[in-house]
């Protein structure tokens, strides 16, 4: 009896996942590790974010291609009081995946959970503009407004990360409004998603989306095995590939490798300027000198890094904002030039002298310092090697120290026992307000000298002022003007030396129709609901 029930239930599920008269289709790709949570409000890792993107219904979506806001569950919205209040007008007659009706109560419930002081997640924290909890008002089943204690910069974009959960469904967070819902999770093996039969979107012909019936997310950390499986046709896409893999794939599987252009990710290095760091005073003096930092930056051949490490799939970086960020990028900035003569002049002007090919400071100390980076990242180790040779040309001796990631984090966030660090910067959010904790001198992520009681320099004080101004400005043009100036100051003072901006490289099977990889995550499947593929054959796995 029990077996037959299971069989019927399974059969029922299988049949419900594909519209009648059509064989089931399945999209297969990999997650690099286990998702840490299936609760969309607690997401703080990339793999959980993938699940959220595929299953969560949001009020407003940032279109990954155009980078513009598009209405989703909210048919329209109004922002008032200079970004303090937002009112949503919801689409009618929508349902969660289990049939529970969607209404303004669900939005209110989700926002209350999100803004609970015990909810600690990046999504929740981006809304916290003040200590005053927001007031949420449901004025009708399809109208809800949220009033924040202080203006929230870029408020509308933040709702792209808020997946609405049901206030009434017995399935709780398992009831979703996105194109897919979680059907099964085998820890360590895979997550299986099935199309949401109540998904609200239709195509132009009135066919309910998504086209693909199932998504199989296999947990696979080994990138080489992932690549082998993609080449065999066992996987349909790899969301992010490195440059070496890209060229190999472009050669053996033409049409499958896509270079979408500059991504939001840049490699950068910085010097430790923490006054209490366990460094010799003379080294601290070097690192605190903008001229020294600019000299080092000008000695670095960024074009070679792009050509050799990234095989041309990268470009020299200008600053904290990538050219891929269409609105916020300061187009007047150019990368620091590769100019060894200028570098030498700057160093001479600072009192440094070269003797027997080695650089010494004014007090006779050999200019030698270590560059810490995380071990196991082949590209970063190669970049560090290249920096060694570049700096040798101006007489600087660079020692590369590779550390395992937790050890590195401990040094750069707690003990400050490091001299220079090479890491990547990934802007998950287009809006620079998300980087507030990087640019404010009092913040913890102000990497070169965090948690300052007072800004240590005039230019850091200026940046503080500009960041606060952009956070409270209501007009986008004003915000852009302020942040352009921040980018200019960073370019001049070089607290971070931005090296290269990597291109967004993906692998996606030519069998997948409507594919259109972009630079924003998720690069290959941002438009998953309109992707099509041939039905899965019996022997394809």
């Amino acid at each position, binding site marked *: 009896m029990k077996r037959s029930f299971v069989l019927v239930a399974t059969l029922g599920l299988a049949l419900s996942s594909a519209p009648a008269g059509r064989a089931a289709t399945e999209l297969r790709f990999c997650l690099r590790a286990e998702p840490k949570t299936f609760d969309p409000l607690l997401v703080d890792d990339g793999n959980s974010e993938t699940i959220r993107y595929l299953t969560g219904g949001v009020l407003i979506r940032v279109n990954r291609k155009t980078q513009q806001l598009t209405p989703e569950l909210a048919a329209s919205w109004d922002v008032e009081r200079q970004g303090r209040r937002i009112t949503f007008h919801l689409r009618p007659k929508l349902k969660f995946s289990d049939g529970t009706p969607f209404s303004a109560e669900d939005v209110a419930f989700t926002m209350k959970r999100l803004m609970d002081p015990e909810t600690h997640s990046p999504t929740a924290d981006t809304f916290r503009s003040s200590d005053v909890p927001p007031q949420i008002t449901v004025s009708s089943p399809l109208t809800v407004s949220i009033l924040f204690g202080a203006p929230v910069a870029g408020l509308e974009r933040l709702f792209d990360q808020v997946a609405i959960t049901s206030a009434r469904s017995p399935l709780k967070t398992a009831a979703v409004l996105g194109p897919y819902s979680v059907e099964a999770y085998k820890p360590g093996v895979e997550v299986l998603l099935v199309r949401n039969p109540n998904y609200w979107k239709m195509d132009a012909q009135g066919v309910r989306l998504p086209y693909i019936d199932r998504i199989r997310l296999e947990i696979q950390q080994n990138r080489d095995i992932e690549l082998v499986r993609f080449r065999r046709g066992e996987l349909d896409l790899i969301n992010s590939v490195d440059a070496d893999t890209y060229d190999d794939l472009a050669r053996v599987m033409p049409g499958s490798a896509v270079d979408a252009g500059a991504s939001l990710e840049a490699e950068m290095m910085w010097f430790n300027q923490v006054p209490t760091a366990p460094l010799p005073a003379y080294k601290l003096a070097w690192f605190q000198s903008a001229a020294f930092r600019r000299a080092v930056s000008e000695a670095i051949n960024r074009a070679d890094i792009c050509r050799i490490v990234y095989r041309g799939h990268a470009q020299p970086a200008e600053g904290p904002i990538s050219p891929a960020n269409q609105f916020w990028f300061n187009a007047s900035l150019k990368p620091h030039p590769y100019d060894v003569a200028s570098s030498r002049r700057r160093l001479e002007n600072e009192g440094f002298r070269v003797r027997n090919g080695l650089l010494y400071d004014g007090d006779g100390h050999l200019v030698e310092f270590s560059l810490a980076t995380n071990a196991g990242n082949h590209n970063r180790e190669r970049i560090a090697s290249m920096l060694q040779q570049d700096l040798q040309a101006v007489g600087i001796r660079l020692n590369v120290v590779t550390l*395992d990631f937790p*050890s590195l984090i401990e040094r750069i966030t707690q003990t400050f026992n490091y001299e220079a660090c090479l890491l990547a910067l990934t802007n998950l959010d287009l809006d620079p307000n998300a980087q507030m904790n990087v640019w404010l001198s009092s913040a913890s992520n102000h990497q070169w000298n965090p948690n300052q009681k007072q800004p240590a320099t005039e230019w850091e004080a200026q940046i503080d002022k500009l960041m606060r101004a952009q956070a409270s400005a209501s007009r986008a043009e004003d915000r852009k003007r302020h942040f352009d100036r921040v980018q200019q100051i960073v370019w001049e003072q070089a607290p971070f030396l931005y090296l290269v901006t990597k291109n967004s490289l993906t692998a996606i099977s030519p069998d997948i129709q409507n594919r259109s990889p972009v630079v924003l995550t998720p690069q290959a499947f941002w438009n998953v609901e309109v992707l099509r593929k041939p039905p899965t054959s019996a022997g394809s796995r």
Partner: protein
Amino acid sequence: MKKPQLLAILVLAALLAAGVAAGLWHADSHARQFRELPSARPSSTFPLGTDDLGRDRLARLLYATRLSLLLAPAAALIATLLAALAGGTAGYFGGWWDNCIVRAIDLMLSLPWLFLLLAARALLPLNAPPVASLVMTYGLLAVLGWAGPARVIRAGTRHLRESDFALQASAEGCSELRIFSRHLIPNLKPVLLAQLWTTIPVFILAEANLGLLGLSASEPFPTWGNLLRELQNPFSIRPVTLAPLAVVMISVACFKLATPPQEQHS
């Protein structure tokens, strides 16, 4: 000395000499990047081609041989000797000492020693020479790598303890220490040597894997271990990338051949 033994010693000496000469000939030959020639094919200028940063593969291989040829066998030897001491004495003397050693072996095999390696690395100064990290890693591998072989040696010793020649020596009034050192240890030689030849490449690969956690020599210092890491992706393997593998295998084979043949003791 037999011909194979002599040949093996000559090959090892030649490898070591080539490694030392490579460093003396041009101090930075292993580090210099010829950026216009990344991943170049073998040529008269670069007999083994260049790596992905345009560095001379042959120079890097010879430079790596300098230290790896000495450190890996030295660490393996220390581990083997420690294993012989612990396992041999435990198997021979038995009793409470045997119990202590067996428990110690079980603990050594169960604990996550990776954290000790990480802690030791953290103690090194940031600007320590690259070779310091490598020496530290091999040193710790030597001190930690005795447990598994000790168990096998212990079993071998217990077996030999009951052999005829040991009983005869005991009956003739030989002291336990003399029986252990003059009769049992020489007969354990095959086991000890087997342990040594297996441990050398195991340590080299361990050093390569530990490099993924920053526990090996840092750039641009080449080691056999980090050169072998190029083989991790078989799809990018070309014949020249097999050169480090060939050198490691030849070196281990030469060490084996160079060892005097076992003599029968009774």
